[in-house]
């Protein structure tokens, strides 16, 4: 844990409590971007966590950024915080200027095709990306792509130049289709993507979802415990029924396991940059999401799946995030194939190293 982390956690929590209310989340789903929330975060530097101070960030490391995302996930904050932090990290690695305001990045899916082409005195980028987070709400999008010679390029485009078709995930968060219609880009906005290859961004993307999910899981645990203590049936709080208790214990177990898995993956990635711990953590939170959303809704009864109750802000996000940057099964397939390509010793050293 870095020096700034406790302060960061306190500040972020306070901002979320003030600006990320149930009403704000509902309105965001109706299309109203929560500018006040975003500005409060930006003013306190939260949107540049993990970016060195000398290039315009506020410092802090990956762990700090992820602990912030855990809080963001816990409050179901309807903002592109994960995307902005990732995008700024890419810009900083590429020595491109840090941009202001909320950002997104693409390609967002493994099979999106983005290509860069050298023009006479500049560059042009074209392609289509699916399911791009928050595209409609940001001014700029960081873009990765390849030249026809296979060189990887990173740049950014203004959303004014893109064609955006609105879409959304199960939580009503914007996930838009973005067409890049051969957009011209000045040379000074182009950088070779040598530091951060596509796979690394995918891994970091998965880490953001793991952190967001760990936060959402925590919130669900708290909501469910509160409900179980308050809601009475047959003359006593439902939390007093053994059948409910047993389920709450399972819920607590999965939430605890997910929290530590998310933390451990960040720590391991910072130390080694391998994706195995990310895989293991994304699998853990994905499996937890299934069990936890099931139990939480069961305990909450019909009330929990109405629009009025905040539970679905977290459960619908889990149902969305579990599939983003690789579902638990996709990661398991990858991890399993890596294990089976090697010896059985491999698992044990993977677990113990």
């Amino acid at each position, binding site marked *: 844990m870095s020096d700034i982390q406790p302060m960061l956690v306190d500040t972020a929590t306070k901002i979320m409590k003030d600006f990320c209310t149930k009403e704000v989340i509902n309105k965001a789903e109706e299309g109203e971007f929560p500018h006040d929330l975003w500005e409060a975060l930006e003013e306190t530097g939260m949107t540049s966590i993990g970016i060195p101070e000398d290039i315009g960030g506020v410092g802090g490391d990956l762990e700090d950024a992820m602990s912030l995302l855990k809080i963001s996930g816990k409050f179901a904050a309807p903002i592109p915080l994960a995307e902005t932090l990732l995008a700024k990290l890419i810009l900083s690695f590429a020595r491109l200027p840090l941009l202001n305001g909320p950002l997104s990045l693409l390609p967002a899916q493994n099979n999106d095709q983005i290509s860069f082409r050298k023009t006479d005195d500049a560059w042009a980028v074209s392609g289509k990306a699916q399911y791009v987070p928050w595209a409609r709400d940001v001014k700029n999008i960081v873009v990765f792509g390849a030249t026809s010679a296979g060189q990887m390029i990173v740049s950014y485009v203004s959303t004014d130049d893109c064609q955006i078709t609105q879409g959304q995930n199960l939580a009503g968060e914007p996930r838009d289709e973005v067409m890049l219609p051969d957009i011209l880009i000045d040379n000074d906005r182009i950088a070779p993507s040598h530091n951060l290859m596509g796979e690394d961004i995918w891994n970091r993307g998965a880490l953001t979802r793991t952190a967001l999910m760990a936060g959402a899981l925590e919130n669900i645990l*708290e909501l469910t415990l509160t409900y179980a203590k308050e809601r009475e049936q047959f003359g006593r709080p439902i939390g007093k029924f053994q059948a409910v208790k047993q389920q709450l*214990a399972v819920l*607590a177990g999965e*939430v605890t396991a997910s929290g530590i898995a998310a933390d451990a993956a960040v720590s391991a990635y910072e130390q080694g940059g391998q994706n195995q711990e990310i895989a293991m953590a994304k699998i853990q939170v994905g499996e937890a999401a299934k069990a936890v959303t099931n139990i939480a809704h069961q305990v909450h009864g019909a009330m929990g799946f109405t629009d009025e109750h905040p539970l679905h802000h977290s459960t619908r996000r889990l149902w969305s995030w579990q599939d983003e940057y690789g579902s638990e099964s996709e990661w398991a397939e990858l*991890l399993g194939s890596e*294990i089976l390509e090697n010896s059985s010793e491999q698992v044990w050293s993977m677990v113990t190293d």
Partner: protein
Amino acid sequence: MLKELELPIVDLPKETENLREEVRSFLSAELHNESFTTRSDSWLSGFSADFSRKLGERGWLGMTWPKKYGGHERTAFERFVVTEELLAAGAPVAAHWFADRQTGPLLLNYGTEYQRQTLLPRIVRGELFFAIGLSEPNSGSDLASISTRAKKSGNKWVINGSKIWSSGAHHAHYIVVLLRTATHGEKKHEGLSQMIVDLSAPGVTVRPIYLMTGEHHFNEVIFEDVEISEGMIVGEVGGGWKQSMAELAYERSGPERFLSTYPLLKELINQLSETSGQHANIKIGKLASRLWTLRCMSLGVAGLLEKGDSPNIAASLVKDLGTQFEKDVIDVARELIPSRPSMNAPTKFETLLAESILHAPGFTLRGGTTEILRSIIARGIGV
């Protein structure tokens, strides 16, 4: 996060790396010499006095205990590393298991100086084995309802009653017995005490309880007018319940709560290959994730214990999730490789699978049933 569920990330200190290598090469030499066969659930079923003595020689028993009692004053993390390597290899650690995991710490916390000096050094050398006497025929999960009792008679105590499920009591030298020294008042767990009983003392009968596999690990230990001296009381008379409960976080969070079927998982992976396909990949990937997560949790609990906390809730979670994982390994093994398991099957995979299947019912019962653990957890998080 709820405070009860907060677990730190533990990065094992550098010095454990060498130790791990030492343990691995020891084990690989022992396996090479065929001094033992890899077994599932080896901390129950792998009894070898010889092997325990070898561990003692290497300084791997009583690792964290004070040097004045023969211990090695190493950290809980070093002990963790040795334990997990032994269990992962399916090594025969049953002989010293309870003495090393439970009796030692109990005596260090509550024992008399005389008990420590006479007993601990022999445990550390792997010469002295202990059994535990908790459950009784009529009190399974309801531990506070036990009826084995000791009556004061002069400067002796006279014990009558019986204990059940005492694993290894037929090999062990002593048994630590939880028993009633006074009739209980309002609370059933009042008036309980812990005593050390010599298993060769007159009036002690050790009756085998055979498992459905035919194996003999469990026993009923019957006490008929067994006399023990006052010096064999552990801690306070009447303090037995509190003392027993204090052991629980240690007992429930260790690697033995998720590694009982690891030898099967290892052999399963040996039998599979990169051409096993998507189905195997997904199943193995998911098991690996859970194993890693459980180990993070177990280490996190060890970290808190080392700091002096008592993370009982988190420890219960490790046991609950860990024992489910131990069973999941079996289901995946069966699903991925059609086989004909039996205890004397021709292949290692089939014998490990058989052993795992037949031992599995115990995983979620011993040391606190799933239902009891979940009740503890629920209470711990406030419902």
